[in-house]
C-alpha cells in the first residue's frame, strides 16, 4: 500500500488489532419475481492497528455501514475472514463473541435511535457493565460518574432520559456507553452527520482527546471527506462494495490514484 503501514498481517511483529481479509457480504433481496442477490461487500481487505484511526469514505450504498456491521460481527459475513488480534472470529457463535464485544464498541449516526428512550442515561451506560463485568453496584455507579465526566456531561445526567438531551449531548451519552467496557476499538458510523457544525466540532474534539488518553483505535466512517481527512491516519475509499484505494490520509488527499477518488475529491464544495 502507498503511505501507511502495509495491510499484509505477516509483516506485523504483532497482529493488528482487527483485520478483515477478503470480506464479502451478500444479501438476498425479495422481488416479485423471486430473490436477487445484492453484493454489498466484495473482497474487502483492511486492518486497524492500535492507536490508529482508519477512515472509511464512500457514497450512499457503497457498503460503509455493512462493513462496520461485519467488522464487529453484527452481521456474519458471507465470505472472507475477520481476525481480532490474530484470532479468527468470522464464524464464532454469538455466545463466544464476548471478547470482541468487550474490545470493540460502536457509535451510530443517530443517537436518538440507538439509546433506549425508556431508560435513564445512567442505566443506559451501566448496561454493558452489568452484562460484561463483575463490578459491584457501587463500583458501577462510580464508573458511570467517571464516564459522564470523561464525555463532558454533568453527573446529574444519569437520572435523566435521552429525550431531555440535545443531539450532541445524546451522542456524548452514546460515547460514554461505548467507553464503559474500556474497549480498544471504537467503530464510529457517521457519528457527527446528524449534528450541527458547531456541535460536530465538539464531538470530533472529544473523540480525538479520548483516543490520545486511552490509546483507542478508531474506525471512522463518514460521507464527509473533510471530516474524514481531519480524523484519520489512513483512509479507505469504498465504492460499490470494494476498496478502490487505501493509503495514508495525506497521500489520498494530495495524490489520489484511483479515478473514483479523484472524482470524489473534485466534488467537495468550496475547495480553495
Amino acid at each position, binding site marked *: 500500500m502507498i503511505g501507511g503501514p502495509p495491510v499484509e498481517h505477516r509483516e506485523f511483529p504483532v497482529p493488528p488489532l482487527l483485520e478483515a481479509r477478503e470480506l464479502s457480504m451478500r444479501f438476498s433481496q425479495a422481488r416479485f419475481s423471486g430473490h436477487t442477490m445484492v453484493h454489498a461487500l466484495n473482497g474487502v481487505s483492511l486492518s486497524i492497528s492500535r492507536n490508529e484511526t482508519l477512515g472509511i469514505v464512500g*457514497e*450512499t450504498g457503497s457498503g460503509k455501514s455493512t462493513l462496520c456491521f461485519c467488522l464487529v460481527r453484527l452481521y456474519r459475513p458471507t465470505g472472507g475472514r475477520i481476525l481480532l488480534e490474530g484470532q479468527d472470529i468470522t464464524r464464532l457463535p454469538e455466545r463466544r463473541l464476548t471478547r470482541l464485544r468487550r474490545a470493540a464498541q460502536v457509535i451510530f449516526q443517530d443517537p436518538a435511535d440507538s439509546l433506549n428512550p425508556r431508560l435513564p442515561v445512567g442505566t443506559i451506560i451501566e448496561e454493558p457493565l452489568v452484562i460484561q463485568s463483575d463490578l459491584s453496584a457501587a463500583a458501577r455507579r462510580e464508573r458511570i460518574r467517571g464516564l459522564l465526566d470523561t464525555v463532558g456531561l454533568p453527573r446529574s445526567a444519569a437520572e435523566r432520559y435521552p429525550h431531555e438531551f*440535545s443531539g*450532541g*449531548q445524546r451522542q456524548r451519552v452514546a460515547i460514554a456507553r461505548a467507553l464503559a467496557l474500556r474497549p480498544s476499538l471504537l467503530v464510529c458510523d457517521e457519528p457527527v452527520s446528524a449534528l*450541527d*457544525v*458547531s*456541535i*460536530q*466540532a*465538539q464531538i*470530533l*474534539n472529544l473523540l*480525538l482527546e479520548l483516543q490520545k488518553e486511552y490509546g483507542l483505535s478508531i474506525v471512522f466512517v463518514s*460521507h*464527509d*471527506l*473533510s*471530516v474524514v*481527512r*481531519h*480524523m*484519520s491516519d489512513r483512509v479507505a475509499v469504498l465504492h460499490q462494495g470494494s476498496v478502490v484505494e487505501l493509503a495514508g*490520509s*495525506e497521500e489520498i*488527499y494530495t495524490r489520489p490514484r484511483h479515478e473514483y477518488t479523484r*472524482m*470524489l475529491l*473534485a*466534488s*467537495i*464544495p*468550496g*475547495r*480553495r
Partner: protein
Amino acid sequence: MREAGAVPAAGASPRDPGLPVLEVTGLSVGFADATGAVVPVTADVSFSVSAGQTLSLVGESGCGKTVTASAVMRLLPRPSGRILSGSVRLGGREIVDLPLPELYGLRGGQMAMVFQEPMTSLNPVHTALDQVVEVLRLHRADVPARERRAAAFKLLEEAEFPDPKRRAASYPFQLSGGMRQRVMIAMALAGQPRLLIADEPTTALDVTVQAQILALLKRIRAEHGMSVLYITHDMAVVSEIADEVAVMYAGQVVETGPASRLLAEPLHPYTRGLLACAPRLDSRPRARLESIPGTVPAPAGYPAWCRFADRCPLADAACRAAPVVLRPVRGRHVRCIKAGP
C-alpha cells in the same frame, strides 16, 4: 424552454433590474403553543435578493431559516404559524396580507420552491412527467394543452434529468434522490419563476450528486436571469453558490453582506465560529477544532439582549444590557456591538 422564456408568463410584472426581486423587512414569525400563546421564533429578519443573484440564508438547525422561507412562500403551517409583523415584497408587491386566491398565482409562477427531501414533496402516485405537466397546466396559460407534454420533456432535459424519453414515465419511488431533485427543479422552472427558493436541496444527496445539482442551479440561474434564495447549513456550499449571504442565529439575521467578503473576513463572532469549526481540506489534521461552546437557546428562552452572548468569547456586561440591532459595519450589516469599523 429557452424560446418560450422570452414570452412573459401570465401575470408577470415587468422585470425591473433596479428593484430587488425579494425584499424581506423586519419579518417576525411566531407559533402558537398548546395553550394558544404565541412564541416568536424569528424576529426582525431583513434581507433582499437582487435580480439574477443568489442569496444564501445560512445557519444551524432551529435558527429560523426554513421558517423564514416558508413565510416568504406563505406556507407556514396552519393554524399555529403566523407572521407577526414585517413585510415581504415580491417584485415590489406586498404579499404578507395577500388573499389566498391571488397567492396561488404567485406560488409556482412568480416564485417556486425546491425542498430538501424531494420524496416527500413529489406526489408518489404521479409520474415524473405528469408532475411537470401539472405545473404547466396551472401556471402557463401560454402553453397550449397539446404542447404541454413536449414542453415538460424539454424542462426535464433542461434539469439534466437523465434519459427523459425512457425515464419520464417513472414514479418517484423508482428514481434516485438526485433524479427526484431534478424533477423538482424542472417543476420549479416550469412556472418561469423570478425567484427560486431552495431549502437545503443537496443536503440529502451524495457529494458527487451535490456538485452536479449546484452546477445545474448556477447554470439555470444564469440562463433564466432568476434570483435564488438558497437555504443551507453548510458554509462550503455557500462559498460555491452565493453572491450574498445572510447568517441567521436564534431567529435573527446576525450578519449579512457579499459572500466573498463575509467568508474571507467574518465580522460577527458567530459567523467566525461557524467558519472555524468545520474541518477544511487545508486545515491541520487532528488539530483541535474551534468549537462554539454550549447550545442554541430554545425560542421561549431567547434573551432580551444579544442572543449569542452566552456562547460568545467576546461577550461582556454591555452585550447583556439591551437588544442588539443590525447595523452597518464596513459595507455589511452586523448584529454585534463589538464589531468595529
